[in-house]
């Protein structure tokens, strides 16, 4: 599911004794504003004594990528529940948008650790300078003279031309 980046600001409902309650702001990755508000309360009521019924959300703003034309390295620190415990992780991704890196993270966690979205909490996200990156899968692309061939080209066949049987093995070499 493509994630969007929201800033949600909320507070406890004002009362006579507390007419100006403390504001709390969270950055939430969610597919839409409705889910963003829901996740805001999910986290807020774990940290502070307020919930959806006792509080109010003042604003939900979508945050857009400042420069989506530049490739960046993102580090995402997360916490997830596995079948037998809960663990912290720091993962690095290369992408042009933070939301793209977050999508990659959810996909990777699902694939490698069978962790679904509900079990994952994103703690921090950062843009990382190439010199500070750690993961080899990201560091290997930090080369201003990067050069690699497409060594295994899988032919793209239109659905209507797909055959069950073929007399030839596919040719994956394009040069």
């Amino acid at each position: 599911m493509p994630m969007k980046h929201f800033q949600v600001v909320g507070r406890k409902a004002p009362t006579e004794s507390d007419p100006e309650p403390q504001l709390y702001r969270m950055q939430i990755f969610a597919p839409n504003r409705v889910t963003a508000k829901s996740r805001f309360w999910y986290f807020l009521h774990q940290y502070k004594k307020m919930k959806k019924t006792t509080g109010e959300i003042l604003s939900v703003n979508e945050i857009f990528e400042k420069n989506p034309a530049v490739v960046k390295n993102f580090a995402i620190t997360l916490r997830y529940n596995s079948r037998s415990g809960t663990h912290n992780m720091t993962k690095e991704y290369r992408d042009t948008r933070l939301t793209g890196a977050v999508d990659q993270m959810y996909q990777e966690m699902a694939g490698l650790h069978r962790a679904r979205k509900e079990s994952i909490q994103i703690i921090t996200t950062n843009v990382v300078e190439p010199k500070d990156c750690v993961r080899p899968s990201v560091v290997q692309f930090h080369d201003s003279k990067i050069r690699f061939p497409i060594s295994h080209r899988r032919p793209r066949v239109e659905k209507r031309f797909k055959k069950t049987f073929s007399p030839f093995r596919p040719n994956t070499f394009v040069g």
Partner: protein
Amino acid sequence: GELACTNRRPVKMPFTRFVEIGRVALINYGPEEGKLCTIIDVVDQNRALVDGPYGITGVHRQVINLRRLSLTDFKVKIGLNARAKSLKKAWAAAGVQEKWAATAWAAKRASRSAKASLTDLGRFKAMLAKKTRAKKVKTAFNKLKKSA
């Protein structure tokens, strides 16, 4: 015991076209199909950041999957994340447009799209042209056959 190492690296790779900064590629799938673009940065194993340049080929700066690219033999000299202006200059310096149009690949694409966009009159004219040519070939052939 020690393994007898018979693993010799090939001196020359069979690959001639590489994903690299400055490589000109043809987009072979999607809304920008058929347009040329330049790889200006590599995101990861499967994706590259690509730019037309927009002013020349009509491809905006975007991330595209390498599966949607067919690499060409042409390369322009640019730095990492080149700006549109320097990219245009590099294209002009390398003469990519002319070189591409001169390739058999581009000529085949052009002729195929021309054929596909023929009207009925066009197809009729093509049929007549084929008949005229075939007649000329056959008369010349038969003459040779007779004289042989």
